[in-house]
């Protein structure tokens, strides 16, 4: 298909470089410099989308961010992107896109009949209709039918980057005002970052006619480009859309990079500016009248962009409807390009300034006239006009039809205040301009050009220079003075009541498919707040955030509610200004980099032994070591029995290790631990608990005193980092007089747990120089030695219930130690075992696992530390909370053992403990099962549970309730295995 609507010359496109692309399955050609939208328009594609709710045919209405009709699904497969605006997609060769929300395509949509249902589909339709018995009954089906494009089902193959930058002055928008501000700031020595969403500088100079400071726009722009090149302190970020303005002048912007190659696809910029100058321009308002959504009805300013930026003619016979002067310039430019402008309908009275030139060019102008209807099957063919009075009411008997294939509309201009509003800035309704304009600033910055409501280009440019210099000097502006402007006459909607019609097809928000009648209905239903109107009618709720609809809606509400627009107020604009893809937000933090995992020193040995690695907090750790064809439960069974009867090793390196040193170390640890620390001798270990100040058990582990003033605090692997930070907080913020240092040494020492009755024999084969005899090296003590040149620390502690040693060497020797122990233990049948087997063994032994056997309500006395606290004289963190009335309650849940009465049923973790008489599921829970395993050692299930008054109820029969079933169980001692502890003292 030829580009029938391409002008023979003009536009910033390269006619020597054609690009082929497909839209809705058809092939077309465009040029380098086109957007998808301009290329579609050049090819005469009129229906480019279907509306959100009613599936009405829609065409291009805008040329930039504010396009509400033409959302496309770009590409397919892993790189597909939903809901992109065709106006924002730079055309490239081979591009494939299709309209969203229609099937099979935008021209022929099987859901098109929805528009016939429009009368039965008012605001709040869903809330009113799908009520009985419950919205949740209907929700899945409605959610399935709603929505626009589809998200990709495959992993994104592209890379996204994040970049940080800072500048004295950030300028958003590279139009004439933004350029002037940026250059002025840079000339005064400020570092400047200039952000613009387009690949080329210039903004409106790319398409608006006329002079700038006496020069043709292109010449003025060329001079500024040269100036910027000569200023090394200006950094220009093109194709970069600023979308978020946060506290302390933190600006987020998204840079689109060319497709293909190995470079990232997008780059998310986080830029901190001492000052931010917003030169974000203005957005044109559409006109609200019946059937104003027909393909071919377009914003006048957009047509100018298509004409001069892309060399595209919007149509052959163009009518224009406006309430301001700006559309006249569009008419004149179209006329110069050879387009027939059949009529300018101006809703105002009087003699507007450009009237004379229109007459010279022979363009018919009718004053006090506005569109009231449109016709055309797959695009505009005819426009109906009526005379209107000063209130925008169509006058009976004045209607006439006009043939036109395009109707350009302009309802006035709104400063693009989204970023300003995000920054916390307050708006003011300007009666002169009939628009919301920036008023009070919340952050250090300036607004220039059309964003500040300044429509006169030369005045704007000069004001922007002043603002640029002020920004460079970090001058603070708190309030913007009103800008002198000509009086504008609002036309919020064309009122067709007097000619016997209604506003049910007068579209206000094209994206969310809401109409003037929806707004009026909401007012009749007593909505008052603009925020409620927004949510009830969904006006402004779509991905464009109401860029073309918000102010018209407020204007209409102002008439309905009898309030001034400023009193109706605006809804709050929130980031992002323009949709941002999740890939850019995630950046490189995906897949393996989502949360970098720490790797064990002996990882290669675990891999070689076939370890099943699992994610435990920050670490990947061996869960168990299955042999060929072995099930998980069989592996754990085998590992447990091997340790209990022989010997095994487990990589214990992730265990938290904190070195606490200094003259006041003992005093500090006395305040940190529940336990008595002062009686701990050098070379001895003690198991202890730490609490939060709320008394809740925070962590547990073994404390070792290595010398007079040096302790090693052992923590659980998951809490290691948090405990160091927590200790630092106490030392820096509360006990600043204590002379103590804390240091995490978790990854300085690799640790291997050696456990089992044959552990001593294995360890004795490594010549560490430590006397391992039970009398010389008893349970709960620690010794230092050397294996060859390597320092080694051995703590005789146990979490399995067997004779055990935790052997530490500097991290880089972790693999050698592992291999040496395996080699030494080979004749004794040593095996490697994993965390899962350890968990079974500690449960058999009744050893507490913080986080499994404790929860956010567990005090130390609930897990058997009451007597230890009673014997300790000093205060410690959380102690006072253990003494509160709640802490002294006699019916607290206490950790005990549970055994199934039948000796065979596994008690479910989380199953509720209820008394023997319990029948129905409505009774009182007395606690729950916290750990439960089938014990390979004992041949029966073992379990731990938090049970009300558990310790005084040993021997009592209870039941465990789970999913409607009741299992009889008995409250027993926590320690099912080796209750005398003989095996620890071997």
């Amino acid at each position, binding site marked *: 298909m030829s580009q029938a609507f391409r002008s023979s010359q003009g536009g910033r496109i390269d006619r020597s470089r054609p690009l082929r692309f497909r839209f809705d399955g058809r092939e077309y050609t465009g040029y380098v410099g086109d957007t998808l939208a301009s290329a579609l328009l050049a090819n005469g594609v009129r229906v480019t989308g279907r509306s959100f709710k009613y599936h009405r045919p829609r065409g291009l209405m805008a040329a930039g961010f504010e396009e509400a009709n033409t959302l496309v699904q770009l590409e397919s497969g892993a790189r597909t992107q939903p809901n992109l605006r065709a106006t924002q997609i730079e055309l490239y060769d081979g591009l494939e896109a299709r309209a969203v929300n229609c099937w099979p395509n935008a021209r022929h949509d099987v859901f098109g009949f929805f528009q016939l249902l429009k009368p039965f589909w008012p605001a709040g339709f869903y809330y009113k209709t799908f009520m009985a018995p419950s919205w949740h009954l209907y929700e899945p089906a409605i959610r399935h039918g709603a929505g626009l494009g589809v998200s990709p089902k495959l992993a994104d193959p592209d890379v996204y980057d994040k970049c940080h930058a800072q500048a004295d002055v950030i300028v958003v928008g590279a139009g004439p005002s933004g350029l002037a501000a940026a250059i002025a700031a840079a000339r005064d020595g400020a570092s400047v970052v200039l952000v613009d969403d387009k690949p080329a500088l210039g903004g409106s100079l790319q398409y608006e006619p006329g002079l700038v400071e006496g020069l043709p726009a292109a010449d003025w722009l060329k001079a500024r480009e040269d100036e910027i090149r000569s200023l090394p302190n200006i950094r220009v970020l093109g194709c970069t859309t600023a979308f978020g303005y*946060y*506290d*302390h*002048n*933190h600006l987020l912007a998204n840079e689109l990079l060319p497709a293909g190659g190995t470079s990232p696809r997008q780059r998310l910029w*986080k830029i*901190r500016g001492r000052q931010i100058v917003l030169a974000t321009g203005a957005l044109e308002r559409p006109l609200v009248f019946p059937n104003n959504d027909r393909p071919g009805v377009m914003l006048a300013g957009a047509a100018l962009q298509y004409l001069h930026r892309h060399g595209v003619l919007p149509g052959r016979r163009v009518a224009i409807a406006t309430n301001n002067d700006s559309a006249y310039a569009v008419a004149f430019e179209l006329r110069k390009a050879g387009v027939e402008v059949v009529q300018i309908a101006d809703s105002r009275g009087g003699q507007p300034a450009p009237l004379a030139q229109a007459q010279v060019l022979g363009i018919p102008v009718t004053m006090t006239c506005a569109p009231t209807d449109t016709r055309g099957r797959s695009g505009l063919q005819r426009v109906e006009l009526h005379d209107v009075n000063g209130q925008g009411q169509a006058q009976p008997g004045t209607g006439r039809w006009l043939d036109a294939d395009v109707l350009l509309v302009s309802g006035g201009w709104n400063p693009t205040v989204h970023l300003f509003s995000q920054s*916390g800035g*307050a708006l003011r309704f300007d009666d002169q301009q009939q628009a919301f304009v920036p008023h*009070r600033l*919340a952050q250090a910055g300036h607004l220039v050009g059309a964003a500040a409501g300044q429509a006169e280009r030369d005045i704007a440019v000069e004001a922007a220079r002043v603002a640029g210099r002020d920004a460079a000097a970090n001058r603070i502006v708190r309030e913007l003075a009103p800008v002198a402007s000509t009086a504008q006459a609002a036309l919020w909607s064309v009122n067709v009541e007097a000619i016997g019609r209604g506003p049910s097809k007068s579209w206000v928000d094209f994206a969310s498919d809401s109409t003037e009648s929806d707004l009026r209905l909401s007012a009749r239903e007593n909505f008052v707040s603009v925020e409620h109107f927004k949510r009830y009618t969904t006006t402004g709720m779509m991905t464009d955030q109401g860029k073309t609809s918000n102010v018209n809606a407020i204007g209409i509400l102002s008439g309905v509610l009898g309030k001034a627009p400023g009193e109706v107020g605006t809804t709050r604009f929130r980031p992002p200004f323009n949709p941002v893809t999740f890939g850019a937000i995630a950046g490189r933090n995906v897949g393996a980099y989502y949360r970098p995992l720490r790797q064990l020193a002996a990882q290669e040995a675990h891999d070689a032994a076939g370890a099943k690695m699992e994610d435990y907090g920050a670490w990947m750790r061996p869960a168990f070591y299955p042999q060929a064809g072995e099930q998980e439960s069989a592996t754990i069974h085998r590992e447990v029995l091997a340790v209990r009867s022989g010997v095994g090793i487990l990589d214990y390196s992730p265990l938290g290790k904190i070195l606490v040193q200094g003259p006041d170390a003992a005093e500090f640890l006395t305040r940190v631990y529940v336990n008595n620390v002062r009686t701990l001798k050098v070379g001895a270990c003690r198991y202890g608990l730490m609490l939060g*100040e*709320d008394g809740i058990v925070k962590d547990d582990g073994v404390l070792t005193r290595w010398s007079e003033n040096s302790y090693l605090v052992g923590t659980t692997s998951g809490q290691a980092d948090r405990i160091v*930070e927590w200790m*630092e*907080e106490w030392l*820096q*913020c*509360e006990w*600043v007089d204590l002379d103590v240092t804390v240091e995490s040494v978790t990854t300085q020492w690799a640790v291997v747990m050696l456990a089992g009755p044959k552990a001593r024999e294995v360890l004795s084969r490594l010549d560490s120089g430590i006397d391992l005899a039970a009398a010389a090296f008893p349970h709960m003590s620690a010794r230092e030695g050397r294996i060859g040149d390597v320092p080694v620390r051995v703590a005789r502690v146990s979490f399995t219930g067997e004779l055990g040693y935790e052997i530490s060497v500097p991290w880089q020797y972790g693999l050698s130690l592992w291999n040496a122990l395996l080699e030494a233990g080979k004749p004794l049948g040593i095996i490697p075992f994993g965390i899962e087997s350890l968990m079974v063994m500690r449960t058999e032994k009744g050893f507490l696992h913080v986080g499994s056997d404790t929860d956010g309500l567990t005090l130390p006395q609930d897990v058997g530390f009451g007597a230890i606290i009673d014997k300790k004289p*000093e*205060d410690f963190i959380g*102690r*006072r*909370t253990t*003494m*509160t*009335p709640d802490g002294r309650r006699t019916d607290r849940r206490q950790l005990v053992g549970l055994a199934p009465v039948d000796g065979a049923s596994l008690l479910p973790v989380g199953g509720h403990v209820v008394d023997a008489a319990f029948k129905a599921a409505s009774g009182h829970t007395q606690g729950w099962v916290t750990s439960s395993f089938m014990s390979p050692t004992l041949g029966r299930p073992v379990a731990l549970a938090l049970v009300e008054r558990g310790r005084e109820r040993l021997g009592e029969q209870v039941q465990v309730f789970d999913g409607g079933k009741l299992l009889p169980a008995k409250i027993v001692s926590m320690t099912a295995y080796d209750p005398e502890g003989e095996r620890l003292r071997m």
Partner: protein
Amino acid sequence: MLKIDCPFCGPRDEAEFRCGGESHIQRPGPHDAVSDAQWADYLYMRQNPLGWHFERWLHAAGCRQWFNLARHTVTHEVRVVYAMTAPKPQVEATEVRS
């Protein structure tokens, strides 16, 4: 995102810091000299002012030092950054914009 002027490292993004909440709270003690009411007040009761809030921050991804600052709860302006051990400074009243 706030910009916080760490007294040891200079201005950095909020993402490097952790807020520790209200500062200048005295821990009552020892345990056997504190009433339930005193303890509950220490543990749970916090200021929630419209205006200047004195709070402690940790430069967690930097020097790992704690310090105090005054932050305005409406404007998020950070006015005075001062040492943990320093007394609560005077911050002049500022116009509150909402």
